[in-house]
């Protein structure tokens, strides 16, 4: 039988030990972000020394001549992410508005669940689906009408390659919809119903209430959700690698192949034969990491203002 301790000293010490252990485990996270940054920076040093800032705007990537520039990948990363946002934002906002404003009660859970499942599909499965289903569909049913209507603009010119900015952008869009929808739904749920009621009482139609009272109230959080989706799109690797065509080239037509930073690392890292080649890929990783950390940090600040530190969107819906 254990003797009940009459003083608090004994338990005090074990409490401190317990707290110390937990604190140590929690400190793993700040340590991790520093370790990642350190690893990437040290690995990138040779390339940083050799090319300086011109790495960012040089568009040559020539392992034979040992000249590396990341401009085409940076361009492709941003272009595919923007394309994805253009497609995903209307879809995701619609889902969020539908779930919070228009849906009958019995339909809410099933729809939310289906959207959540979209986030559970592994990236490589999206890629497989994209190669065998999405690209043939685009080639047969989407590209011809797009060309007929918008073929005169620089964005829809040239031959459709299959693996292209368009295919990569669409698959990215499908993949980020659940994240944006999850955050947006939480944000809209946090809008007090008095906002809606006030608008309706003033004689607003249902849509006008949403547009003029609900959406503006949650604006910061909604923007945060979109930026969070952007962060996901920037760093997404497998599906994009399988669909975007992987060509070091800057072109404005969405029908042409492009390249992203993540795809370049995925394709070339294990084949990088020289020291400088590997270092250039580390620098690409460094740029990608810093970019996504900044984007995610902005998104978190905006979302936290609404959701008060809850883990909204860390997991979809």
């Amino acid at each position, binding site marked *: 039988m254990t003797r009940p301790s009459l003083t608090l000293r004994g338990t005090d010490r074990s409490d401190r030990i317990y707290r110390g252990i937990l604190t140590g485990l929690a400190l793993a996270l700040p340590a991790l972000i520093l370790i990642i940054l350190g690893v990437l920076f040290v690995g990138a040093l040779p390339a940083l020394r050799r090319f300086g800032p011109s790495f960012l705007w040089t568009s040559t990537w020539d392992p034979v001549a040992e000249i590396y520039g990341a401009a085409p990948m940076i361009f492709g990363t941003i272009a595919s992410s923007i394309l994805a946002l253009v497609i995903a934002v209307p879809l995701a906002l619609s889902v969020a508005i539908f779930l919070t404003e228009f849906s009958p009660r019995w339909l809410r859970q099933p729809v939310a669940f289906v959207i959540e499942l979209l986030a559970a599909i592994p990236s490589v499965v999206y890629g*497989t689906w994209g190669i065998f289903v999405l690209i043939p569909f685009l080639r047969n049913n989407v590209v011809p009408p797009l060309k007929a209507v918008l073929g005169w603009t620089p964005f829809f010119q040239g031959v459709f390659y299959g693996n292209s900015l368009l295919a990569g952008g669409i698959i990215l869009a499908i993949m980020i919809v659940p994240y944006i929808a999850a955050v947006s739904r939480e944000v809209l749920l946090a809008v007090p119903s008095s906002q809606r009621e006030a608008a309706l009482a003033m004689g607003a139609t249902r849509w006008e209430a949403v547009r003029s009272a609900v959406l503006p109230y949650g604006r910061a959080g909604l923007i945060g959700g979109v930026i969070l989706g952007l962060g996901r799109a920037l760093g997404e690797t497998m599906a994009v690698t399988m669909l975007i065509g992987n060509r070091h080239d800057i072109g404005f037509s969405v029908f042409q192949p492009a390249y992203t930073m993540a795809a370049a690392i995925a394709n070339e890292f294990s084949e990088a034969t020289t020291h400088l080649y590997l270092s250039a890929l580390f620098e690409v990783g460094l740029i990608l990491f810093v970019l996504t950390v900044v984007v995610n940090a902005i998104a978190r600040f905006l979302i936290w203002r609404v959701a008060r530190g809850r883990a909204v969107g860390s997991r979809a819906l």
Partner: protein
Amino acid sequence: MNRVLRRQITSRFMTALVIGLSFVAVLTLVLILGNLVLKGASSLDWAFFTKSPVPAGQTGGGVANAIVGTGIVVGLAALIGVPFGVGAGLYLAEYGGGRLGFLVRFIADVLNGTPSIVIGIVGWTFVVRPTSRFSALAGSVALAILMIPMLARTTEEIVRLVPHSLREAALALGYARWRTSLRIVARTALGGIVTGCLVGVARIAGETAPLLFTALGNLNFSVHVTQPMQTLSLQIYVYATGPFEEWHRLAWASALVLMGLVLIISLAARWVTRERYGSVR
């Protein structure tokens, strides 16, 4: 009158648009799952699950090596990642009110959005480079790093759901804080914590990017963690992007198996939490 009518029509139109776009989003999932089943199910037979791949160009063979490999790589990753993730989550729930708590929480959320390919570089740097050999262990390290921030946040959320009165009762009975935290709070939330771990496992089981240059892939059956190892995700990548019809068939089947695996774990996890915390969310 005309104005009112126009506003009504706009409202109707926008409502229809919102519903239509939501329908499109739901339809995508149905299409993807439908295609997986249609194209993958016919290839699932006994040989698929029990045989290793045959040389390229031949027909037949299975993905037994990849299924076992996924289990080993992911299991090892969970062994490394779970203590850190759950510990950090407990810290956030129990002592996370201060500045350090804020910082850790923020970093966890930011890391949750970090590209997994970058984490692969970290695994490569710490395991592959010093041992100068690709290995399952390197892949597990990368996946464990991916898991930690995810687990920290889910654990925190779940532990916070434990009613305060339970904690107060234990403290009032003279329990020490650490004992209250472990025996009462964590114990009560155990089901939820396990669920969170399962969801984390499901997420990393589908990861491919961080394994490309760590676990690398292996066409033969291997259970040595210091050797390259195949996983389902890597196998799908190779088969789907390869030139052979037979490979494409196997890619679909493997994708169906991986999807099924991830779905079953997620659904089970969801079911368990709904039983317990259904009223909260």
